[in-house]
């Protein structure tokens, strides 16, 4: 089961290394990981997606808590958080295909960021599932490049970690 772990850490060099080391040491696979500074410049938020059972995630949470630079750890509940991922996708496009691509973009809410006689660079921010769908829809046009950020997430409502 995919689970989203949100971690607040000291914004310092070497912290990310310690956190990823903690996963690899136990042979836990990280599905995705996104880091960014929070509103407090001394604190970064790391959002980690793991595909593991509950006992594994519980142990990961405890091990993360043991790290001195980790301030808070929370596994976000399945239906009680908003998770979004950003994708930049460059696809082959010419006079014949451009309009079809634009239609799909319109349906999915993607934005055109760059255009050239032979390509389009598209931007979409959504749930990972919807990004997958969008990517699948683009495949027949021949995708040149894809870059995805990994999910970032916050709890729904007024709660915070």
């Amino acid at each position, binding site marked *: 089961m995919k689970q989203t772990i949100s971690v607040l*850490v*000291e914004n310092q*060099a*070497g912290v990310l*290394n*310690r956190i990823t*080391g903690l996963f690899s*040491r136990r042979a836990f696979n990280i599905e995705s990981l996104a880091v960014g500074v929070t509103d407090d410049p001394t604190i970064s938020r790391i959002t980690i997606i793991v595909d593991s059972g509950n*006992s594994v995630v*519980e*142990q990961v949470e*405890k*091990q993360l*808590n*043991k*790290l*001195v*630079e*980790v*301030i808070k750890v929370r596994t976000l509940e399945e239906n009680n958080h908003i998770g979004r991922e950003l994708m930049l996708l460059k696809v082959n496009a010419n006079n014949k295909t451009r309009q079809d691509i634009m239609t799909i973009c319109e349906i999915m809410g993607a934005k055109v960021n760059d255009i050239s006689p032979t390509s389009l660079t598209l931007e979409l921010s959504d749930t990972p599932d919807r990004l997958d769908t969008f990517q699948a829809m683009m495949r027949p046009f021949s995708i040149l490049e894809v870059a995805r950020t990994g999910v970032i997430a916050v709890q729904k409502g007024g709660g915070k970690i």
Partner: protein
Amino acid sequence: MNGAQALIESLLQEHVDHIFGYAGATICPAVDALKEHPEIGYTLVRTEQNAGHMASGYARVSGKTGVCMVTSGPGATNLITGIATAYMDSIPLVAITGQVPSHLLGRDIFQEVDITGAVAPFSKHSYLVKNANDIPRIVKEAFHIASTGRPGPVLIDIPIDVQNQELKRFVYPEEVNIRGYKPSVKGNELQIKRVAEAISRSKQPVICAGGGVWLSHARDELVELAERNSIPVIKTMMGLSVLPTDHPLNMGMIGAHGNRCANKALAKADLLIMVGTRAADRAVMDPGEIQRRMATIHIDVDPAEIGKNMQAAIPLVGDVKVILRQLLERDITPPDSAAWREQLREYRTAELSRVFPRREGYVFPGTLLRRLGDKLRDDAAVCVDVGQNQIFACKYLPQKHGRLLTSGGLGTMGYALPAAIGVKVAQPDRQTIVICGDGSFQMAMNELAAIRCAGMDIKIVLFRNHVLGLVNQIQNAAPYHGPFGVALDGSPDFETIASAYGIPSLVLSDEDALDETLDRFLDSRGSCLLICEVHPDVGTND
């Protein structure tokens, strides 16, 4: 005041009175500052790994944090095994390493290595100091982190230019405030209540004491809880010696290499109270089975230990000493465990009065250890190495009110001799014994120099069987096909080695001479090496 002086001044503020180290180019400023402070003792090791072990021995008997200081590159990498050994046994250490100049970091220059990166998996925390003004705060934090919660080694890596950098002002912080580090101390009252009820309800309770009992200085509390409620006590290797061997509630050590009685107690109990132990594989081979069979209580300061190897029915997180006191404050109705204790006592008596096998021209380790233990002073510290000698000592050496120190977690050969030196530095008057094999002795015998330098009185028992006994034993069983690479051919004459360091030796190969030789050995002035001839076929199950 420069960074190096600030470092030494900070160590003084932490009441550090001894450093185990090995100098080198990048740590020279710190060593230079140390030279001005004769009130801090210094032991020059012969390889950096042993600085870690000495600091560990020192920490374990003194209750203070051990300090070691080495240079960058190979000095730091040699220390790694010492740090990992301390980590696995949760020993509070602060390791200080020199580092190449900050502006050259990452260029692979002479004696540069990313030591904070290298020790990350087995250190509690580490610092790479970038500004000398941070040194007082970092040292304060390092000692706090190393010694509180679940103790462990903390590394401070200081580039040489930072050691030479002038501080604006030296102010040693009064308090530590790390927002991500707040270890729990007190146990949850509701859980305490549940534990008390579970104890009262049980018929066949057993306490399993681990190294955490020592780390939180909770021996008295543990014994009181056991005695008041008549609960038999079994121990892991790290918890050994919390009870004297002849204590009626002491049922011995559990595990693959443990006492039969202790393993029976573990298998047949209806309530297992684990205190400061992680239930690792060598102690508890099948935690799942234990979990299915009996109610379990797990008391540990580290929340991550709860449910790591065993999912306890009642977890209780906090300092072992504080929690045991909380339990002692409750009115627990002692369980009716007379029949259970009686049954275990029978196993125990049979085990303790067992007659060991005897072979002409050799000494059986159990026979020697039983006599040795009886002759030791009440509070002797016995440092035990790794291999067959460790199993024998843990199984057969009678305990009084002293300490048995060994590398239980990592199983580092060559631990005993340097650890004993650390013990002696902390407590010069304490009777200190080393028990090792001819394999492990050769991993540490260069440290006889430290014994000689300080004129220490350490008695070393060496079991000589000319083979790496425990590996030999493993290789002689399925699925392997006989011994390879375990014969200790080419070993030196240990008497000559010892005498080269000015240490006398005795050789024992006849059990008839056992008592007389042991008396001479223990009564001799200064250090002494006792070489015991052990037959290479002797196994730990004999």
